[in-house]
């Protein structure tokens, strides 16, 4: 396996595009990533396209917009980890030596359906009748399990929303760029306790792309190649309760172990993390799953200021956070979490999310993240999890 680098990255602003189709959204991201790389379709040897809602052939339809050069197209679907799995396949294709330069692209057009919807025939399916399997219920219960085991409060979970919404104000690509103080988060209507509306990610349309090539070839295109230091993908190992309550923790922990070992870094070495905060409860669980803090310390961790841009609580939120500060707690990792505003602000067009998280880390490692720049970021981690269940972790290095 040879070293692989990202030489181009892009993300279109997530939101609603009723007048465009998904291939057009994807093509825009793809062409912008190529432009960013200083490359063209003639340089691209294969396309790895992640999309969850479209039927097969979505990648081919994207090439009808981007340039039909006849290259191989691989269409990937893997729950919310669809985009990041496409990236991983692209990474391996280059690492193995099969190709020198490929594109990994993620796209989705969700309309108004979103994560709050449900599948199945409502007359006869358990889902339609009982509703337990819907995403909000699953992540509500995952938070309640943490509450049961560690005594975490709804307010502590809500601080993740306060943080990420604050971060989003500096991200022009986020679907929403609106701050929300703690009382506003807690007073928005409950969706699935303990998550309120402002603790759930919005859904919309979006696309993101990366241009990946061998480290050797990267030098022809950029002076700032971003090294892919690890790519991990896991599914759920057997557990007694995972058929009733999807376990979002174990497979993330397993992926983190693989990623840290492969990259030769630990959580204390990370400057930033983009993790899968589809709901505020999930963000706190993943602090522990990724080893940013110890088990049961997630509430103290978010209140410590460590995962906030600048590693401290902004003055205007000091009062909100003060009751939850544990003075005896000292953070193990000072990785800024979700500088982009996270899925909670940026939005979550399923197939696009995994590539967008990687693109965000690339922007920071190159020092191109504008007002949300994590200062002097050298090592970043991108984490995505999809239910039933797929978890990807990528470690990127300057």
């Amino acid at each position, binding site marked *: 396996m040879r070293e692989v680098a990202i030489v181009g990255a892009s993300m279109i602003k997530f939101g609603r595009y009723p007048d465009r189709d998904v291939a057009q959204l994807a093509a825009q991201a793809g062409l912008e990533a190529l432009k960013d790389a200083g490359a063209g379709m003639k340089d691209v040897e294969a396309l790895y396209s992640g999309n969850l809602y479209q039927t097969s052939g979505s990648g081919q339809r994207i090439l009808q917009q981007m340039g039909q050069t006849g290259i191989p197209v691989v269409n990937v679907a893997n729950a919310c980890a669809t985009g990041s799995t496409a990236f991983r396949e692209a990474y391996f294709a280059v690492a193995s030596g099969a190709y020198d330069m490929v594109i990994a692209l993620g796209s989705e057009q969700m309309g108004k359906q979103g994560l*709050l*919807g*449900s599948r199945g025939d*409502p*007359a*006869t*399916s*358990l889902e*339609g*009748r*009982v*509703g*337990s*399997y*819907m995403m*909000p*219920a699953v992540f*509500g*219960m995952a*938070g*309640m*399990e943490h509450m*049961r085991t560690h005594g975490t409060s709804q307010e502590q979970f809500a601080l993740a929303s306060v943080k990420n919404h604050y971060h989003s104000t500096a991200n022009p690509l986020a679907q929403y760029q609106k701050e929300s103080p703690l009382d506003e988060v807690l007073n928005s*209507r*409950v*969706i*699935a*306790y*303990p998550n309120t509306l402002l603790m759930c990610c919005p859904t919309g349309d979006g696309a993101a792309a990366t241009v990946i090539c061998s480290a050797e070839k990267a030098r022809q295109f950029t002076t700032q190649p971003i090294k892919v230091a690890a790519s991990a993908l896991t599914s759920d190992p*057997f557990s*007694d*309760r995972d*058929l*009733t*309550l999807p376990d979002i923790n174990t497979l993330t922990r397993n992926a983190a172990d693989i990623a840290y070992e492969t990259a030769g870094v630990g959580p204390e070495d990370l400057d930033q993390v983009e993790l899968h905060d589809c709901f505020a409860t999930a963000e706190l669980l993943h602090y522990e799953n990724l080893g940013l803090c110890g088990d049961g310390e997630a509430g103290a961790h978010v209140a410590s200021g460590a995962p906030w841009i600048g590693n401290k609580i902004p003055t205007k939120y000091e009062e909100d956070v003060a009751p939850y500060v544990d003075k005896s707690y000292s953070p193990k990792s000072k990785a800024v979490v979700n500088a982009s505003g996270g899925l909670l602000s940026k939005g979550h067009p399923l197939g696009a999310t995994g590539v967008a998280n990687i693109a965000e880390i690339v922007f920071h490692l190159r020092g191109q993240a504008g007002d949300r720049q994590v200062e002097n970021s050298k090592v970043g981690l991108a984490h995505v999890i999809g239910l039933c269940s797929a978890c990807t972790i990528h470690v990127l290095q300057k």
Partner: protein
Amino acid sequence: MADSATETAPEIRPIVPHLKLGETRDQDRLFGSRCSNCNTLYVGPRLFCGKCSGQGPFTEEILSTEGEVWVYSIIHQATPYVKAPYIAAVVDLPEGVSVNTNIVDIEPEPENIKFGMKVRMYTEEVSEDKEGNKYVAYKFCPA
């Protein structure tokens, strides 16, 4: 004239495969399948074992009607077919398996539900399809 060969009388059916209907609703029971190779118990029917990769055979076991709340959430935004708010929960049964269910007969407020709370299963008809088949679902209420 109706084609009598394709016409069947409406049935009463369980809404999930892990519910076995009795003669009357108070005889309805959840059931599990135990792997004869590794002894793992699953809720509902099973052909293969996700733990030991065995192909069975599986022996059927009737599950208790009483259990304890492991975790819950109160769902305020649901599909149009469900009345919200309602309590969605994972209930642990004494046999060592757990089921997804709704907790009913209590106001859906966090202060009314306790982790480990004892609950009891019951069943009722909840829907009917266009052929007239009726569907029976299980729920749990405070024991």
